């Protein structure tokens, strides 16, 4: 498929464990976003990669959260020492680039921290 792909689709982990969530954007898309979707909180911006520019990390809620994007393509969101409040759906989106507007979303990774 040519859409944004995320894995795993579901992840259940124990409090205190580290998790990694992966995003494969649409080929050729230079912009990549991570959002967190939880009940009552809407879509919370986490981090934004645009080409070779320094990422906008202003939405990361704590230093337990980090993300990287290798080779301008695949991205990994890492949550260290998970807490129960980290439970949410983590959405990845990509877009063609600067000023192209439309974001294309993946199906999300549902994280449950017990």
């Amino acid at each position, binding site marked *: 498929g040519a859409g944004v792909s995320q894995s795993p689709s579901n992840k259940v982990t124990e409090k205190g464990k580290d998790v990694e969530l992966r995003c494969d954007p649409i080929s050729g898309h230079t912009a990549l976003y991570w959002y967190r979707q939880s009940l009552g909180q*809407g*879509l919370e911006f986490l981090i934004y990669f645009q080409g070779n520019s320094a990422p906008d990390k202003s939405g990361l809620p704590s230093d337990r959260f980090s993300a990287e994007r290798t080779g301008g393509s695949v991205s990994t969101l890492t949550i260290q020492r998970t807490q129960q409040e980290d439970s949410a759906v983590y959405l990845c989106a990509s877009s063609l680039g600067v000023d192209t507007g*439309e974001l294309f979303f993946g199906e999300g990774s549902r994280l449950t921290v017990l």
Partner: protein
Amino acid sequence: AQRVTQPEKLLSVFKGAPVELKCNYSYSGSPELFWYVQYSRQRLQLLLRHISRESIKGFTADLNKGETSFHLKKPFAQEEDSAMYYCALTRTGGFKTIFGAGTRLFVKA
């Protein structure tokens, strides 16, 4: 700071009734506004954007810079319009896109 506000978490209307989903924003520059929709068990997807000035699935939205609003409207709601709707904002120059909290629309038969 830029912010998108959707004051209604849930909106319930009868089929055939008009519907308006409210969106207000705060931004000092020239924003670009969007509406995204997520139907049950589907991905979040773009519904419409203000620069296109088009009607999608009978929905329209007008950017009112004076009131800093971008309300989504449809004159006659259909059951298949039931979904989660998000208002979003960005600006030119490679700025991030931020979203509101979303409004769940439920259209009753």
